[in-house]
Structure formats: structure tokens, C-alpha cells
């Protein structure tokens, strides 16, 4: 057996073990970045092999927590891709206004920056009191942070710039209060949010939404898993509901390409065809 084949075997055993023991299913995640993260964890734990990591995570739940954080890649920011938020205001909000009450699913919300950006945008568009944002992630640790609504002060300058580029209409600093090197966002923003753990791979549909925002989450899935999760998202949308993906994600390569019409091809905003 070559080194590469042995590594494949160890990787498969690790993923099976994690799935069976902890329920997290990474078996169909895209290999390239999965391997990088696993090897990173092997090195950080002071281990030599993927088999060694398997033993550790099976016997030490805290090691599993650390691996889960690596697998999450919860990198995010407020008003990331400002042009996307501008497009939401211009093209999606007018449709949302036609409903008496709007349910939004922010899937893979990480530490909540995207969710707060959405809540601010919707308040400015006068929809704050008739919308609920369901913000979900597979990772409890990042969800806990999201619930706090506390972010680093250092990043507010960039966020202010992107808020304005995204069509922001107020003074951004009105939305938060600084304490030390951190800021707490206006708690009334959180009144529109529901945070919950939900795993796109292993959990089922839990509501029907007018808008689903799932950005930079499915890039970690392989093509077959993307197709499956697209099925879940599709089934979770109302007729003519809207789906938004990350800037570099394409629906073209999935089996759901024909289920949607493009609302804004640049911003990856799609509308359920029926």
C-alpha cells in the first residue's frame, strides 16, 4: 500500500469514527481542504498520524471540540461583500415587503456577524418588526458567541466602511456600544433572531422560508453533498422564495441549476422558479 493509499484509509476511518461516535458527518466534505485541516490538527495535537488523531478524539471529547472548530472555518465579517447587501436592499427587500411576515434562514451563520448585518439592513428598510431570522450553525461554540452579539472593536472601522458601501443609511456607531476592546450590538436587534444548532448534512428541514442565505458554507462540501444540501434548501423555500450563496459559489454545477432563475447573477441571488 502506498503512503497516499494508507492516508486515504486512515482518513476514512477517522471520519467514520467521528460520525459514529459524535454524529458529525464530514465524510462528503471536499477532500482538499479537509485534509489540510486534519493534518493541521494532527500537528497541533503533537501527533504523527491521522490514526493517532482518531484515537485521541474518540477518547477525549475536548480534542473533538478542537477538531470541530478546525472543521468549522468560521471566518466571517459584517457586511462581507458590500455589493451583496446593496443587492439585497434593492432586489430582495421589495419582494419580502409583499409578505405580512417574513422568515429568513441564515444557514452557517458562524459567529453571527452576517446575522447582525441582516438585522440592521432589515430594520433600516422598515421591516424590523415583521421578520424573524433563524440563524443556524453546526457548531455550538460559534453559536454561543453569535448569541452574545459581542464583536471586536478593532474591526469596526472596516465594518463601518462596508456598511456604508452596502447602502447603510445611519451612523453605524449608533448600533453598538464599546466596552474595552469590544463592542456590544444593540440587544433589540437580537429580538428578531433565533439561534439554533442545525447541521445541513445530518438534520432535516425545520421550517419554510422566504429567504435563505447560505454563504461560504457549501464550498466545504463535495459536489454530491452540495447537491443533497441544495435539495434541503430548495425544500425549505416557499414558492418563488429567494436563495443567496457566496460570491464564488455557483448553482450551475449542481443538480438544482434549473430549479431557480437568476435574480442577480453577480451576487449569486436566485429565485425559486416555482
Amino acid at each position, binding site marked *: 500500500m502506498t503512503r497516499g493509499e494508507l492516508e486515504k484509509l486512515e482518513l476514512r476511518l477517522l471520519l467514520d469514527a467521528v460520525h459514529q461516535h459524535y454524529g458529525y458527518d464530514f465524510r462528503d466534505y471536499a477532500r482538499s*481542504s479537509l485534509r489540510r485541516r486534519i493534518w493541521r490538527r494532527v500537528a497541533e495535537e503533537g501527533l504523527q498520524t491521522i490514526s493517532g488523531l482518531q484515537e485521541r478524539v474518540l477518547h477525549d471529547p475536548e480534542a473533538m471540540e478542537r477538531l470541530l472548530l478546525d472543521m468549522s472555518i468560521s471566518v466571517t465579517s459584517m457586511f462581507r461583500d458590500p455589493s451583496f447587501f446593496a443587492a439585497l436592499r434593492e432586489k430582495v427587500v421589495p419582494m419580502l415587503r409583499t409578505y405580512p411576515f417574513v422568515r429568513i434562514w441564515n444557514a452557517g451563520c458562524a459567529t453571527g456577524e452576517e446575522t447582525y448585518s441582516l438585522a440592521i439592513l432589515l430594520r433600516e428598510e422598515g421591516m424590523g418588526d415583521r421578520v424573524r431570522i433563524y440563524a443556524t450553525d453546526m457548531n455550538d461554540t460559534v453559536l454561543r458567541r453569535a448569541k452574545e452579539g459581542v464583536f471586536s472593536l478593532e474591526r469596526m472601522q472596516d465594518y463601518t466602511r462596508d456598511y456604508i458601501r452596502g447602502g447603510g443609511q445611519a451612523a453605524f456607531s449608533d448600533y453598538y456600544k464599546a466596552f474595552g476592546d469590544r463592542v456590544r450590538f444593540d440587544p433589540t436587534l437580537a429580538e428578531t433572531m433565533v439561534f439554533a444548532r442545525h447541521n445541513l448534512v445530518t438534520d432535516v428541514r425545520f421550517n419554510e422560508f422566504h429567504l435563505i442565505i447560505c454563504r461560504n458554507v457549501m464550498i466545504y462540501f463535495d459536489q454530491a453533498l452540495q447537491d443533497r444540501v441544495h435539495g434541503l434548501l430548495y425544500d425549505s423555500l416557499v414558492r418563488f422564495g429567494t436563495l443567496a450563496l457566496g460570491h*464564488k459559489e455557483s448553482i450551475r454545477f449542481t443538480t438544482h441549476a434549473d430549479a431557480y432563475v437568476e435574480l442577480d447573477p453577480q451576487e449569486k441571488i436566485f429565485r425559486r422558479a416555482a
Partner: protein
Amino acid sequence: MTVMPSESGGRRLVVVGASWGGLDAVGTVLADLDPDSSPPVAVAQHRADLGEDALARALQGRTRMRVVEAHDKAAIEPGAVYLAPPDYHLLVEDGHFALSLEPPVRYSRPSIDALFESAADVYGESVVAVLLTGANDDGTRGMRAVKRAGGLALVQDPSTAVRPEMPASAIAAGLADRVLGLPAIAAAINDLGAAV
């Protein structure tokens, strides 16, 4: 070295890493590539954010290859040049690309090491890695992975580079199969497809 039989470079893949001075260097290499014989090309170029698709537009003006910013899961097709989008890692899977927002690797996203390592992992000896101008040592680890997998390492002659450090680092590590000027790099890539 085995040469895979094929019409347009076969299952081969060319991966290019460039940093400081890279826009012009990459453009010079691409300018001479023949879409009928060059394998597909993936480029990780460090850059200040030029804005969406700006790099693709700049490079498209100089080559007959089709230049696109890589989308997640985009198929790797002959005649095309795929650029790592700003602020994403570009990774190679079997027959397509994947993007990732993993933290910067040694200060860089896109990371040349990440591109090269993932390419070596999947394409093995069919990878041709090209390391161009730059003022850091990104790419050296990736080159090591390419060499270990039996791929071909082409490195820009540092004396012809805007910044010599990056190619010099790979050469110093003993990883370069050939040290070439930019036109010779393009010619070597075209030859891959011709040599069936």
C-alpha cells in the same frame, strides 16, 4: 517522466504561483501559451484587492487562453486559466477546484503552498508547478510536495524577476528542475502538450 497521452495536455495541470511583480510576469507567460497544446492553468497571485474580476480582465487582454476567476467546484478544462479569487484559497480536487476561507497560510490568502500541495496530492506526477517573482518564500513548501509527488518544477530565473526572493527560495531548497526566463517557461509548457 511519463507523458500522459492526450489531445490538449491530457490530465496534466499547470499551477502557477506569483507575488510581487506577478501580474506582469504571469501575463508574459500566458501571452505565449497555445490554447491547443497548453494544459489547464491555475494561478495563485498574491495581491492587494484589485476588485472583482480585475485581474482576470487584465490578463485576458494578453492571452488566447480563456481567463476566469475560479468558482467553487468549477471543472478544470483545457484552454483555460483559473485565477484564485481575492481572499480565497484555491484548492485542486479531482477534475475540479474547491475554494476555502481557511486562515491565511503564512500571511497569504490565496496561498501558493496550498494550491501546489493540493495539486500535487491529486495530480501527482502530472503537475507542472511554476514559481515566479515574489518577495517572500510562499511556494517553497508547495514545490516540495510537487517534487515528492514526481511533478515538474519550473522556477523563474531570479535574475529576471522583479523580486528574486520567492524563486530563489525554491532554488536554494534544491527543488527546481529547471530555472528559466519567462518566455522559456511558456515554451516548456507548450511543449508538454506537443510531446505526445
